[in-house]
């Protein structure tokens, strides 16, 4: 589904990725972990086609992603990927509902259809009450759940989350992770979570461990935490907190 081969990327004199290779299957939930500066976020940005690696290849559904031009990558991101950021990163001027609607409109959907989709996602994540509020009026947990709704509303095939609970206390973080994993499994989307929190990593089927820009564990499903490779089957319809396939 998603594959990176010997990626290299540096910023100035710091090497962020130094030959990292990973393989992620369809519907898998993986956690990318590692100490700060190990290249987690850079790997995520490369996989999501936000930045291009200096060397190596990124493949999505068998298609080279790193060689596409900016327009094509942007379209690919819009149609196939959803992103959740550490601080929610909602547009402060828009209401929660409008924040969810916006990417749908940009994706070419009609206003009414987008509004309906947004409302049902907000409801699904239990933030329907906040639909008319602006981000400044929301709590951290609510904010992040709206961000999850925004990422999921366009029904992406892959969801990328960069430290999605980094700014939350543990209960709010647990809730967000539960919703995120549960929703991803329900819609059979692949979920890639970058985190330095082991408790967040424990939601994933597999851990991809990075050290100094290299993958030291879990590069493929076979070497990862779960060996069965059929993640999500048992938990597809499971409770909101999401299950693990064993």
């Amino acid at each position: 589904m998603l594959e990176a081969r010997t990626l290299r990327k540096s910023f100035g004199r710091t090497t962020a990725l130094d030959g990292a290779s990973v393989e992620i299957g369809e519907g898998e939930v993986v956690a990318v972990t590692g100490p700060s500066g190990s290249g987690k976020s850079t790997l995520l940005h490369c996989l999501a086609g936000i930045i291009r690696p200096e060397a190596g290849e990124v493949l999505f559904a068998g298609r080279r992603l790193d060689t596409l031009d900016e327009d094509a990558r942007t379209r690919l991101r819009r149609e196939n990927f959803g992103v959740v950021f550490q601080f929610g990163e909602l547009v402060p001027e828009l209401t929660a509902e409008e924040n969810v609607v916006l990417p749908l409109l940009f994706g070419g959907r009609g206003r009414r259809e987008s509004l309906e989709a947004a409302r049902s996602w907000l409801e699904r994540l239990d933030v329907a009450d906040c639909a008319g509020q602006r981000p400044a009026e929301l709590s951290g947990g609510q904010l992040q759940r709206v961000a999850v709704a925004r990422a999921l509303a366009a029904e992406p095939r892959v969801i990328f989350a960069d430290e999605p609970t980094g700014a939350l206390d543990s209960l709010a973080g647990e809730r967000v992770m539960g919703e995120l994993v549960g929703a991803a499994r329900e819609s059979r989307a692949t979920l890639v979570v970058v985190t330095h929190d082991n408790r967040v990593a424990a939601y994933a089927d597999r851990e991809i461990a990075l050290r100094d820009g290299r993958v030291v564990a879990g590069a493929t499903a076979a070497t990862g935490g779960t060996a069965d490779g059929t993640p999500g089957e048992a938990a597809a319809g499971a409770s909101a907190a999401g299950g693990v396939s064993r």
Partner: protein
Amino acid sequence: MSTGHVLLGLLSERPKHGYELKKEHDQRLPGAKPLAYGQVYATLQRLERGGLTEVAGTAQEGGPERTVHAITEAGRAELDRWLAEIEAPAPYVASPLFARVVVATLAGGTAEEYLLRQRAAHLTRMRELTARKASGSPAQVLAADYALQHLDADLRWIETALERHTVLKGETDA
């Protein structure tokens, strides 16, 4: 931890008989070792001798007749006293994990590989606990939280050990 105090706590809700106490103990403290019947009765006898509990009658629900125990005023006072005490912070640095990691870092070369495998094992356990939390009872969630956070602490310590190891190695090599 004193089993007597846990039983007093369970009795503070309402009078209960021995079998009930055993069942509730195992349910409320799912992470702890299950309580043997013999231990329940021995403890109840001890409490009664000390005037902390008393026999409140008998109950029969289809099965054999059972003695119902109730907490006394003295028992409540003792329970309050115990709850007011704090647990001495105990860093269990004598754990097998600690010893293994220290020896592994001393041994050099293979330390990193060992630590990574230990990490994988920990994470697998954490994954199971996380999954259990999704469908468990409130008591099970609390127990899973407790275990998860301890495993997380272990992992973070292993992580630091790994980094320190690299730093120390750099120093001795230089």
